């Protein structure tokens, strides 16, 4: 054999071997990809972030809600007006009557199918509820508002929809706009690639991309966003594999749930189910033609076509999609033209219905019991106690007042900040949390993390400890006189009154109402600082504060939430109930995994707490909290306390009406003085907030062991209203013997009889 032929033979062998190896490698590559792609796709479960729901609105006869207010609540849930009510999520109004086509909704205890309900209202609120057959309905829940989700660090958030929940127009529109040969190609569409290339070269405009829906799905599901040739090849091979292995319908459904459709800070909006909520606040199957066209339009570039930043681009592209749909007969030409004329109504802001400070508290609650993956992947449903109406009101009250106060400060380098917590005292439900003036930002959560000096907010705890000794009542006199106290370090402490004046002997109720520091220090020292410290713990503080005398005047740093826990025990009549934001955790399958039950623990005698609360109503009627009645109707009784820390670094107000308790804090993050006292900044927010929530009186019933008496406000002596000029009522134990104002006690019985006579005449006259 010649050298040449031998060389040729060898070359041939190498080539054949190479080709063989290439085929094997190729097969191996396809095999490898198949092994990787198919099982992952087959067992595909998107990581499902836990969905967080607000408390649903309960409708029932007797609910004090006007037809207008109910309509506003329906608008919050994105119900739309319609005359025929054939679709869930619609309603019609006929004067005082509202007919509602309620959506299917998941609750803790049931899945309620979509159904019709009529609500009849009168002057006092809801008078009747009837179903479609005219049968009375005693109570009915509207669907709970979705307020957010707990998405993982990488930020992918989604709501997965089943094919039944997808309006048929959506897949059609996706095919018309993105991939016209979807039904027939095998994963890759060469014709489309060539056409796209040609169109792009000719016009520079993109009418149709070259990637099939399958390729887009592969890209989103399996690959990163790097644009390399190798990645393109992988993408094409994987698309062909998926097409060979799965039905078209499966691929379409996967696409609808997978694709990226928007961004909200760190949160990436994936899938049409969430996009529908994110842009329109309602479920996918309720979207109009215009809205579906919009969602299809932004597939190509969710940030470029962001309707909140670039509405004109978004509308132009939506209109293009509508024209295509009309042109291809997916919808009637006339319908398409009509939809083009419609404005694009996207929910008002990116953060509408998204409450980061509240969600933060929910997340912290759940982290105690759940692993991060359970929360971000397992599709849990979290039912919370958030009341969207209260939350919106609290945000507005805080932000408005801070903006008003901004004008006071020339130094514009730092903005005044604030926080608020609102609870329903009896159940301990946290119904609203505002953590910052930038209510939509997931930043420093002051409601939970700003530990600030509570100042005079400590006083009610001191007075509670005093009443508990049994040696004091609301009329007892204490000395509002200068005092020097040796602190543990040997330093001498000389507290002063806010006004730098002294008042001598004053009754307890007035010392609290006027927030007199000197009187309170005398009282606290007499009771004993350790007893005061221990009262803090009983009312709900996690650890007993340092029993330093300065504790009496509030040398204690607490967060607004911690203050809310303390005052909640007072508003709840001496029963501590853990503040909770999460009521239930329900699995993706609908079974309750965990409930956070309402639990009560008696921590202070309810009659003693009643006496204290009566004194707290005097703070708002007579004392430092009087300005609340600028916003609260005069006949509504509220109890509360102002708080100011030294040098006006913190402005606080904590208090409650019959239905809500709220704690408000205002101050600078760097702890510089604000110049605000408790009755300026925080009090204004508190009273605006409470005033807008239809406050009902704090009207706890007088405990049987107590009776009510009148005392003269300056002296604490018993004196009926006719006998002294300035009297207030207090609650004291029935067997109390109190000193009587001279000249007022001769014939109290006849006085009582006289009043009874007047009362009887009053009844007869009616």
């Amino acid at each position, binding site marked *: 054999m010649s050298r040449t032929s031998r060389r040729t033979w060898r070359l041939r062998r190498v080539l054949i071997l190479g080709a063989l190896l290439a085929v094997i490698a190729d097969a191996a590559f396809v095999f490898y990809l198949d092994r990787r792609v198919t099982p992952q796709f087959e067992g595909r479960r998107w990581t499902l972030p836990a969905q967080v729901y607000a408390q649903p609105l*309960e409708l029932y006869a*007797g609910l004090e809600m006007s037809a207008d207010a109910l309509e506003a609540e329906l608008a919050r849930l994105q119900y739309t007006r319609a005359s025929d009510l054939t679709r869930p999520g619609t309603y019609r109004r006929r004067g005082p009557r509202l007919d509602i086509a309620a959506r299917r909704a998941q609750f*803790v*205890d049931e899945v309620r199918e979509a159904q019709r309900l009529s609500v009849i209202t009168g002057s006092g609120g809801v008078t009747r509820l009837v179903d479609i057959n005219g049968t009375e309905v*005693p*109570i009915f829940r509207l669907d709970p508002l979705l307020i957010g989700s707990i998405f993982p660090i990488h930020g992918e958030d989604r709501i997965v929809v089943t094919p039944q929940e997808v309006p048929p127009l959506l897949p059609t529109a996706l095919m018309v706009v993105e991939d016209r040969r979807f039904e027939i190609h095998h994963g890759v569409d060469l014709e489309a690639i060539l056409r796209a290339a040609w169109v792009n070269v000719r016009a520079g405009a993109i009418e149709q991309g070259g990637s099939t829906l399958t390729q887009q799905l592969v890209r989103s599901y399996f690959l990163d966003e790097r644009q390399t040739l190798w990645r393109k090849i992988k993408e094409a091979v994987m698309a062909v594999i998926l097409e060979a292995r799965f039905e078209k319908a499966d691929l379409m459904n996967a696409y609808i749930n997978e694709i990226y459709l928007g961004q909200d800070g760190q949160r990436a909006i994936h899938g049409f189910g969430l996009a529908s909520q994110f842009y329109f606040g309602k479920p996918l199957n309720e979207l109009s033609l215009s809205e579906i066209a919009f969602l299809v339009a932004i597939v190509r570039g969710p940030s470029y076509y962001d309707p909140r930043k670039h509405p004109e681009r978004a509308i132009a592209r939506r209109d293009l999609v509508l024209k295509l749909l009309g042109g291809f007969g997916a919808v009637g030409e006339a319908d398409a033209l009509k939809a083009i004329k419609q404005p694009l109504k996207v929910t008002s802001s990116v953060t509408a219905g998204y409450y980061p400070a509240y969600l933060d508290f929910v997340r912290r609650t759940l982290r105690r019991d759940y692993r991060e993956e359970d929360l971000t992947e397992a599709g849990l449903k979290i039912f919370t106690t958030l009341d969207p109406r209260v939350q919106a009101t609290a945000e507005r009250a805080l932000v408005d007042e801070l903006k008003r106060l901004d004008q006071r400060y020339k130094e514009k380098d730092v903005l005044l900040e604030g926080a608020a917590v609102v609870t329903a*005292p*009896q*159940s301990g439900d946290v119904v609203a949390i505002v953590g910052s003036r930038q209510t939509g930002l997931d930043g420093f959560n002051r409601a939970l993390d700003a530990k600030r000096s509570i100042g005079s907010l400590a006083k009610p705890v001191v007075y509670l400890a005093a009443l508990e000794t049994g040696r004091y009542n609301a009329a007892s006199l204490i000395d509002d006189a200068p005092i020097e106290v040796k602190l543990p370090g040997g330093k001498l402490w000389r507290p002063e*009154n*806010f006004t730098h004046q002294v*008042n001598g002997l004053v009754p307890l109720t007035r010392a609290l109402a*006027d927030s007199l520091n000197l009187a309170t220090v005398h009282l606290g020292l007499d009771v004993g600082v350790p007893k005061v410290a221990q009262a803090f713990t009983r009312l709900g503080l996690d650890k007993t504060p340092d029993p330093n005398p300065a504790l009496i005047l509030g040398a204690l740093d607490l967060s607004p939430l911690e203050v809310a826990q303390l005052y909640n025990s007072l508003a709840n009549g001496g*029963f501590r109930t853990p503040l909770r934001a999460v*009521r*239930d955790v329900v699995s993706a399958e609908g079974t309750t995994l965990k409930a956070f*039950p*309402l*639990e*009560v623990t008696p921590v202070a005698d309810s009659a003693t707490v009643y006496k204290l609360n*009566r004194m707290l*109503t005097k703070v708002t*009627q007579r*004392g430092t909290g*009087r*300005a*609340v009645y*600028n916003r609260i109707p*005069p006949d509504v*009784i509220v109890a509360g306390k102002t708080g100011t820390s030294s040098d006006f670094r913190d402005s606080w107000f904590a208090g409650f009406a019959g239905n809500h308790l709220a704690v408000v804090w205002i101050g600078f993050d760097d702890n510089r003085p604000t110049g605000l006292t*408790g*009755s*300026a900044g925080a009090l*204004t927010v508190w009273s605006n907030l409470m005033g807008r929530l239809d406050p009902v*009186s704090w*009207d706890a*019933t*007088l*405990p*049987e062991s107590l*009776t*009510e*008496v*009148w005392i003269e*406000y300056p002296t604490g002596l018993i004196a*009926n209203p*006719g006998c002294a000029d*300035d*009297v207030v*009522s207090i609650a004291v134990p*029935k067997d109390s013997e*109190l000193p*009587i104002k001279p000249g007022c*006690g001769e014939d*109290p*019985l006849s006085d009582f*009889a006289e*009043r*009874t006579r007047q*009362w009887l005449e009053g009844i007869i006259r009616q």
Partner: protein
Amino acid sequence: MMRLTLMLALAMVLSGCNLPNPYAAPTPPQQVPGGAPSLPPSPEPQAPVEPLPTPEPVPEPSPAPPPREYQLSSASRSLVDQAHAQMVAGNFVVAAGSIERALRIEPNNPLLWIELGKVRQAEGNYAQAENLGRKALSLATGDPRTQSSAWRLIADSHRARGQSPQAREAEARAEALTPR
């Protein structure tokens, strides 16, 4: 004089309790007398040191309330019925949830706190059952029937924990309050 005695007697019957303290403010306990602030509230911080010059308006005299009888609203009634059915099915978590829904509507109704206590008792959380009974008691002022059922719940919770003396005492209180 006769008329006076009669009126006094009537007032006492209506108040449903002991002789009133001669110095008692003759106002219903649900209202804090002089609820309206007498002064126009000032918008700026203030810490008055002197007693306010204007007296509070003298409130209209009114009688002590007759004995109450707490009832459930129809919405609460249906939720309590639902809870009973859920308890029969052994689903205490959901039953408690139904009572809590009612409590959100009527947080001051002691009957609902007793119902919640019964759910806790049924699921073996006796300490909570007792606490909820005490919560109900604190709200049931003037309603002997409801007070009686609250004491009965407390008695049951003690009995279930083997605390016989406390159970007997609570039972006696319940008995004493039972309307005849």
